[in-house]
């Protein structure tokens, strides 16, 4: 309990510091949303619109950075993330709310699958060291060194086309309306296959490797020998004794990667025009859209922290040693 409260205090501090940084760093960037908008349209938007845009965005009255910071926290406590500039006047919370489910389902599920597959293969490779599984490593290493986006673009080039099963972009067929029905869901799944595969291929090897290494390390622990000595079945020793213990150190890595779901896969979403948060973040960055940037950073920060907290909890659950009585 004490441990838990300490962790929470620590998380709160980290969150505060990160959010503050998130607030200040983007504001150091020269330029403003209006200029970015003008530049984005490159002549399509007349410079005469500048004034009206300043008024529209509420940037016409100069407020000190400090006052803005105070306002920001006030708003934050009211659950108000402000209005986005890029998608003016949509509230940031709404934009994030629209995009988040996509990212979370695509990247989240993929990360989980990647972790599961990687861990599974890693357990296998670590347990049967010296067998053919050792050959798996160079291949996966190569794939993990390939930049995501490059792989994605190649995949689009090779696998999509007018007659291909794989769509080249988007999260679902544009003719459909998101709904839980038999048209939409298959379409959404179909659209997520290629990006998911890309992420999977380039991320799975990390898990294989770290799990394999942990397996090898754990395999030489005494309690594994004891388990063998007890005459337990190979499966039971491998799974319930070796893998179970080898998994523990990987949990925090997994939690962290869950946290990075949002921020880390920016490029996959861009390449596949996937309507997720990473893609929006890039737009926000390009448009100096502070409220949106901050909103997304907030989501990332909080998700990383929550993931870490969950990892702590999972640790508590999985590793009885961290559980303290009383």
């Amino acid at each position, binding site marked *: 309990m004490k441990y838990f409260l300490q962790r929470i205090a620590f998380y709160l501090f980290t969150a505060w510091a990160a959010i503050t940084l998130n607030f200040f760093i983007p504001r150091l960037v020269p330029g403003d949303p209006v200029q970015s908008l003008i530049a984005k349209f490159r002549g399509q938007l007349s410079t005469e619109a500048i004034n009206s845009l300043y008024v529209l965005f509420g940037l016409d009255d100069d407020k000190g950075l400090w006052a803005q910071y105070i306002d920001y926290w006030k708003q934050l406590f009211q659950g108000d993330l402000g209005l986005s500039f890029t998608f003016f006047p949509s509230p940031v919370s709404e934009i994030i709310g629209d995009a988040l489910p996509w990212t979370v389902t695509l990247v989240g599920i993929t990360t989980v699958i990647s972790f599961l597959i990687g861990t599974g293969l890693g357990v296998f490779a670590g347990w049967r060291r010296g067998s053919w599984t050792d050959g798996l490593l160079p291949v996966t290493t190569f794939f993990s060194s390939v930049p995501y986006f490059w792989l994605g673009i190649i995949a689009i080039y090779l696998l999509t086309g007018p007659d291909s099963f794989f769509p080249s972009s988007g999260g679902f067929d544009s003719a459909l309306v998101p709904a839980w029905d038999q048209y939409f869901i298959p379409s959404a799944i179909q659209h997520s296959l290629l990006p998911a595969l890309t992420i999977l291929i380039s991320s799975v090897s990390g898990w294989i490797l770290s799990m394999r290494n942990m397996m090898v390390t754990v395999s*030489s*622990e*005494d*309690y594994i*020998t*004891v*388990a*063998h*000595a*007890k*005459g*337990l*079945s190979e499966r*039971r020793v491998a799974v*319930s*004794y070796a893998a*179970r*213990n080898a998994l*523990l150190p990987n949990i925090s890595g997994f939690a962290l990667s869950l946290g990075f779901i949002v921020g880390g896969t920016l490029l996959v979403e861009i390449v596949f025009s996937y309507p997720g948060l990473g893609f929006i973040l890039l737009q926000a960055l390009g448009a100096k859209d502070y409220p949106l940037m901050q909103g997304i950073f907030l989501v990332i920060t909080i998700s990383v922290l929550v993931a870490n907290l969950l990892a702590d909890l999972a640790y508590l659950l*999985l*590793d*009885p*040693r961290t*559980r303290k*009585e009383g």
Partner: protein
Amino acid sequence: MEPVLEIRNLNVEYGLGDKAVRAVRDVNLTLHRGEVLGLAGESGSGKSTLAYGLTRLLAPPGVITGGEVIYHPEKSDPYDVLGLSDKALRAFRWAETAIVFQGAMNSLNPVHKISTQLTDVLKAHDPKMSEHSRNARAREMLKLVGIAADRMDAYPHQLSGGMRQRVMIGMALILQPQVVIMDEPTTALDVVMQRQILGQLIELRERLGFSVIFITHDLSLLVEFSNRIAIMYGGRIVEEAPANTIYRDALHPYSKGLLSSFPALRGPRRELAGIPGSPPDLAGMPSGCSFHPRCPKAFEPCSTHIPVLGRPDSPDGAARSVACWLHPTEQPVG
């Protein structure tokens, strides 16, 4: 006395080919039913290797390069443990031979409750046993080693070192094996705890009648607790005799050295001689008797010929054997 376990010419190597290190060399040893056989020798002499090698539990790069381990079941014909298939070996392990390792902390899986670790042996060896009776049996074992049944659901780290070691002992006995091998079961504990645990073990042995191979390099402990003692040096057994015989009249110079290395708590202060020199390097074993470079009594055959373990040429030598040129042997013991 009837043998339960006969080790014949066991050889164990670490590594392969030229780099191989032979850690156990032509070891012949017989464990009799119901006895405590002590195995002593300094660090690195191959005690653990021998113990693990018996049931093929050595981790890579350990390889058994030769020998037999004949097990005599109570009712059926003896067989060679090293020739068992994986499946048969799994069934053999723990049911016939259980092992208590040195560090209890490391022997127990930190993430499972001790009840789980106790019952999964039962599950593996007797799948038909009901969960209820498994639990009952586990509880019974814990009680036997003096741990309250309400600690069943504790995790290893919640128990003290002594309790963990007792859990290990309880676990070793849960299938009522014929042989229990204990590799330095008490080195990590302090003397008070050590005595408590060993006392309990002896008591249980009297009740259940299993045989024990007890490994330690603490000779005073060994002399007190075992019936027979075998001394290892450089991968070989150099002497083997009843505990008292060794204590009072060790024949091999190495055994003598060992016995004069530890101070006695009681009785007159005696001179401690110790053993000069340092243990041999397994990779470059001295020729002949591996102890000869450190032996105060070495003479010319020692450096060239390996002495064979055999019954010494002495009047009361019936129950003992030694491998030393000072004590020419009548006949090799098998």
